[in-house]
């Protein structure tokens, strides 16, 4: 049976799609699909899989004279180290707000960028920082201390000598 395009035979029998339209449409949709998936594939490229940053572990020798409550900042690192009777701990000095480096003071830390303040244990006391400064894992390697900037520990964790 031949059906003429453009003349539906009844209300229940909708106009069949002419073959040429069908082929054209499938070609179009195939192309759209291919483009979509290739675009998704290409988007994977800019998402780095291996991060180029230098090692996040470093070792420190604390100066003999470091008093309890006084901060020691290893040169070039965004970390403040403390030693007291209970042991040694390290607090990250990267502000939890927008990543500026906070400065240790006698009352805790202060951030130069938007004025966040933190207590000595890293808790936020003022300003826009959404959470406390991170405590970092410290391990004792016979006289020197190894700080791992990638591993956080609960606040209050101290490593004994």
């Amino acid at each position, binding site marked *: 049976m031949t059906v003429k395009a453009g003349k539906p035979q009844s209300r229940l029998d909708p106009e069949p799609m002419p073959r040429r339209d069908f082929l054209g449409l499938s070609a179009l949709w195939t192309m759209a699909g291919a483009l979509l998936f290739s675009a998704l594939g290409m988007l994977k490229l800019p998402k780095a899989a291996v991060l180029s940053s230098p090692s996040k572990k470093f070792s420190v020798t604390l100066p003999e004279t470091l008093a309890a409550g006084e901060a020691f900042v290893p040169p070039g690192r965004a970390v403040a180290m403390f030693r007291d009777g209970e042991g040694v701990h390290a607090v990250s000095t990267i502000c939890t707000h927008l990543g500026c480096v906070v400065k240790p003071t006698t009352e805790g830390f202060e951030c130069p960028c938007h004025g966040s303040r933190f207590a000595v244990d890293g808790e936020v006391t003022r300003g826009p920082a*959404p959470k406390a400064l991170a405590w970092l894992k410290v391990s004792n390697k016979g006289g020197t201390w190894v700080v791992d900037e990638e591993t956080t520990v609960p606040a209050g964790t101290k490593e004994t000598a």
Partner: protein
Amino acid sequence: MNTPMIEPRSALQVFRDNLLAAPRRLRDAMFRSGKPTTDRTRSTFVFGNVFLHLHSVRTHRWNLRWTTTMGLGIATTAAFLITLVTGVLLMFYYKPYPDAAYDSIKDIHFVVPTGRFIRNIHRWAANVMVVAVILHMARTFYTAAYRRPREFNWLIGMGLFVITLGLSFTGYLLPWDQLAYWAITIGANIAQSPREVTDALNMTEWFDPGGFQRLLLLGSDIVGDEALIRFYLLHVMILPLALVALMAVHFWRIRKDGGMVRPADADGRLESRKEETYPVFTEAPKKTYQLAAIVKGKTSVVNRGPENTVPSMPHLFYAELAVLMLTTLICIGLSLLSDAPLKELANPAVPENPAKAPWYFLGLQEMVAFSAFMGGIGIPSIVIIGLGLIPFLDREEQGTGEWFGGAGGWPLVKQAMVVGFGASILIEALVIRFGWLREWFPAVPQLVITAINPGTVLTLVYALYSVWLVRRYNSTRAGALGLFTVFLCGFVVLTIIGTYFRGPNWEFFWSPADWPGH
């Protein structure tokens, strides 16, 4: 033999004549139509040129009046062209690698012949472009040029606005000095700030759009060589190409939307200038306007009473060239007066204090200083969505093409300015004097601060005011006028406070002279 003999020319003579005629023939081949002296050649001059034909061949006299556009769109274009030329020149010496980048900028500044001048012009033109695009947006808004049939062009314009800011911001990183490094650190962490919410809800581990955005931007977990090359690629390639493509659509749409906006009764209000605006269709043009039959929308000639158009060449083009020259002059003048800044080499251990973003982001930085996510992502998204919705919410017709929509508009805008300036200054004064939630209730959860902070409160006040305007005047146009005005005022106030009144630790100072340790 009395018929005059035509001396046959030798091949050598023909060669000589052709050689002499070559320049003229090259010109004919290039321009095809003769000098633009008659109506017809003026038209062919425009539509025979791929660049010029983005314009229509004739321009309505209303749109040539200075007060219609103030030349702001063209000034933006001009500033962009200036950055394009100077930017390509800077690329001769610039090296996109940390430390090397800083040294190369230093070389450009101190060693390269004219290097400092070119760098200054590039920097100033970028600033001029940002100012011009903001003013241009305000002008299209206040003349209601966003209304049907120009809604789509308004959206294209918003794309241009965002790309313009993106270009300026990516360029800010390239010198790799302290200013650049810390602005990018802050910028990248703003991209990461959805964590402020996901952290508070304890779901960052499995849903972390913030971390993903930051990784995509930096290509690493630190601001380093990967970040620099990405910003460089965006700055010299991706964003300029996107901008040029959108600009082409933007200009072409102006034409297709029936020329620039003008009041329905513009013809009646222009004083008659018969000798300049004689009808076009008397000379039997070579090219007919049949195309108009298949182009949607009103054309400038149908149902428009007496024709009030003049040839775009020279009337429009000379005006455009004048704006181009003026913009260039401004950029050069500023470059002679003041040098582009270059701080010390980037130092990841010591933040610049205060670390300030480029000035047009300082309003945002002011809000970010309350909540990173709301100030940096939430409120800007609300503003962008709101701007994009304006042409679809305000469907009125009255006052299109009039400044402030005609009578009654200006008083309303003045009132909105009082509200806009008043509310933002008031809330800033409150915060500067008394602090905010965390200073009052130290235990308040972060989510509460994210939801209720000076930025969101101000946004809410502004939104409520506009809704009130819609009800009070029973007009969506009134609401739109108010909304745009209050947000513009808020932007101005926050930007000024961020620029002039914030010092070290982002504390308030009446003047930089009071900054400690300076």
